[in-house]
């Protein structure tokens, strides 16, 4: 039996027959024979493909090339070009009048067009597991330039000129950090890449390491050259397995190519990089804790000074830069500092990568020039809020940051403007909240995070975050008092001013900023026992729709507190006082008669409405209280 190289299906359906496919079939059969392909090509008559408008049609396998409107005259070309030389006859391919030309070229897609992708340039464009693809995108040319054409001082000068500031959150000028590390006495020196990204909802560094690991390695080499170090460490979370494995591959490929190791580019400079895995403690993103962790000690901060640039890893001068900061370096060196400084704003240069999460259409990663407005990010890049809901707030800087509200939509995203309104740039996590988000609950969420992640070394953070969380929990459970609100504010100040490291210092930020912009929500929880967004479980009201209730009694039997009352064949009802808001009834009701909602604003129990509302007169006559209710 012959092994055919091609099968050709020629449609012999009614439609194609009427447009002349018999002629095409005959022509094809004879052409195949005459061009000596009989043993290699099998022509098959097939049924209708359903593409009668474009007939006669044929399909060439194995590729599956689909030719339309084929005329007998076209057949010789198909045989000689496609079947013999493997070149598809482009002019006979199907053309969709609508989608063919106005194709969305990658760079035309507004999502990408509106970004300025420097750091993310290679992410999604090259194979991170193949060093040659990185090199093809000008990779390692910056390192070559630095070690063969520039002095360490010149490298630092370019970085200083670029105005690059630390992308990990603090925004310290990178060039100055390098300068300190270079000037520090002691040998050996170390370069550390901080890839301990821990903010909930932030994944910028992970994406860079996964998509373009060589950019970070190249930058570390350049930093090593600039400060006089020969060993780098990437401290990366073990929870980033893909990033870790790509880093491992990248390091071994760079060593193979001689881009890490001895005598780089024929010079005397040598540099190597190793990976150190973190175990997922948030505090290890703080540089002194990170250093202790690399040394195998408990991950905890120590007071600064001395700064790591002077006394870091193993007590030696150490330069620590965040992943995104480093990823900017090769391009700064390849172009120059002025080029970089032309992007962004007066005091914040370059671009910033943000991770969009929460109530936003395009959950994902974007990179924009510093100074881009929040509105641009949320609406033009993030695609706005899903389901037509209203924007309420954006949390930047994760658990260390604060929230931006509607009034800040036109704020320029840069270090100083964010600090001015009580938030911070942070590492670039941005969580969007809509009208369904309760800001007290949001603050509680972040406090729970920092309480859990506090290392426990210093008093204000260890006990302060715990006490703040206790107060916030009380408020969200409807047990808060006016004193709690006052205590919370005082406590936030104490924790912020007196903690040992950045974790504690910034832990109260979500509370302080939600208090600043959404105080009325706190007050609603406290005074009215009401959660306006309908989020706080303990403040929700459960109701039975009498129309839908079939009086089956299931909810009554399941209710753990016996809050549901009702007789057979009579619609049941829930006694609000007894209800523990566990939600069992809701999940059990077969008729969907039970609903949950924010309920209505309730006065504090036992007090007349006027008292709860702050009426002074009623407070004068507390005895008359009960008679005033209802």
């Amino acid at each position, binding site marked *: 039996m012959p092994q055919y190289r091609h099968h050709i299906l020629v449609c012999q359906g009614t439609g194609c027959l009427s447009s002349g496919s018999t002629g095409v079939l005959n022509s094809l059969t004879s052409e195949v024979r005459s061009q000596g392909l009989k043993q290699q090509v099998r022509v098959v008559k097939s049924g209708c493909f359903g593409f009668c408008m474009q007939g006669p049609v044929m399909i060439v396998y*194995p*590729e*599956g090339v*689909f030719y339309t409107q084929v005329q007998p005259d076209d057949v010789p070309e198909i045989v000689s070009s496609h079947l013999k030389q493997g070149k*598809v006859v*482009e002019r006979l*391919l*199907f053309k*969709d009048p*609508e*989608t063919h030309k106005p*194709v*969305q070229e*990658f*760079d035309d*897609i*507004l999502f990408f067009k*509106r*970004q300025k992708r420097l750091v993310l340039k*290679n*992410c*999604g*464009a*090259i*194979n*991170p*597991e193949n060093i*040659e*693809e990185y*090199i*093809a995108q*000008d990779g*390692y*040319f910056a390192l*070559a330039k630095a070690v*063969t054409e520039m002095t360490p001082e010149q490298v630092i000068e370019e970085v200083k000129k670029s105005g690059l500031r630390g992308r990990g959150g603090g925004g310290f000028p990178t060039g100055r950090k390098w300068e300190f590390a270079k000037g520090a006495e002691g040998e050996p020196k170390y370069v550390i890449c901080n890839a301990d990204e821990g903010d909930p909802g932030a994944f910028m560094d*992970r*994406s860079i390491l*996964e*998509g373009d690991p060589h950019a970070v390695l190249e930058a570390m080499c350049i930093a090593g050259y600039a400060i006089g170090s020969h060993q780098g460490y990437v401290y990366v979370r073990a929870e*980033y397995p*893909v990033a870790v494995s790509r880093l491992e591959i990248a390091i071994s490929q760079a060593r193979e*190519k001689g881009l890490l190791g001895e*005598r*780089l*580019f*024929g010079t005397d400079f040598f540099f190597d990089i190793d990976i150190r895995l973190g175990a997922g403690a948030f505090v290890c993103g703080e540089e002194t804790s990170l250093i202790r962790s690399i040394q195998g000690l408990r991950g905890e901060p120590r007071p600064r000074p001395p700064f790591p640039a002077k006394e870091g890893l193993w007590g030696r001068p150490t330069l620590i830069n965040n992943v995104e900061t480093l990823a900017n370096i090769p391009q700064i060196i390849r172009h120059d500092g002025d080029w970089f400084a032309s992007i962004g704003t007066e005091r914040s240069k370059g671009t910033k990568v943000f991770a969009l999460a929460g109530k936003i*259409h*395009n*959950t*994902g*990663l*974007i*990179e924009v020039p510093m100074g881009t407005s929040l509105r641009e990010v949320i*609406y*033009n890049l*993030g*695609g*706005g809020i899903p389901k*037509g809901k209203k924007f309420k707030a954006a949390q930047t800087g994760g658990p260390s940051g604060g929230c931006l509200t509607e009034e800040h939509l036109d704020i320029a995203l840069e270090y100083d403007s964010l600090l001015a309104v009580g938030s911070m740039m942070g590492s670039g996590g941005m969580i969007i909240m809509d009208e369904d988000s309760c800001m007290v609950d949001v603050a509680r969420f972040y406090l729970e995070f920092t309480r859990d992640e506090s290392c426990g070394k210093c008093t204000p953070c260890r006990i302060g975050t715990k006490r703040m969380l206790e107060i916030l929990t009380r408020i969200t459970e409807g047990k808060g008092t006016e004193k709690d609100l006052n205590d919370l504010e005082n406590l936030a100040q104490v924790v912020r001013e007196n903690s040992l490291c950045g974790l504690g210092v910034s832990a109260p930020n979500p509370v302080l900023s939600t208090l600043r912009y959404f105080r009325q929500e706190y007050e609603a929880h406290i005074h009215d026992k009401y959660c306006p967004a309908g989020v706080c479980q303990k403040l929700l009201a459960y109701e039975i729709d009498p129309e839908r209730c079939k009086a089956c009694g299931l909810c009554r039997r399941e209710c753990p507190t016996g809050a549901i009352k009702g007789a057979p064949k009579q619609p049941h009802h829930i006694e609000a006082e007894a209800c523990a808001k566990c939600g069992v009834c809701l999940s059990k009701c077969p008729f969907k008669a039970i609903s949950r909602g924010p309920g209505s604003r309730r006065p504090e129990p036992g007090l007349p409405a006027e008292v709860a509302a702050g009426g002074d007169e009623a407070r004068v006559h507390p005895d008359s209280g009960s008679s005033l209710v209802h």
Partner: protein
Amino acid sequence: MDSVQELEEIRSRVLGEKPGRILISMGTCGLAAGANSTLEASRDELAKRKLTGWDIVQTGCLGLCDREPLLVVEKPGEARVVYYGVNDDRARQIIANHLVNNYIVGEWVLPSDEGTQTS
């Protein structure tokens, strides 16, 4: 690596002529959305159709984590096309239509206004 020339040689070799490339976003988000099976299906389909010369490149995240798996088709001299939500079935169809028949499957192409506010 002894000299910049070596780097330059690699660069020009990699950038040489090719029928085209398929890029599949395989960051953590892509992997979570099933990019691995997109990759396997694409490889399988290319082999089945004997489309040698085409490279499949695993890349990092493009930023649209919500639309993963993303697959980009690059043909020299032609538009770079981004497909979203590419499961293995879509991957096979994209290869048949776009690579073989130069027919862009508009339905799965990331719309150009992606990122503008949706009403």
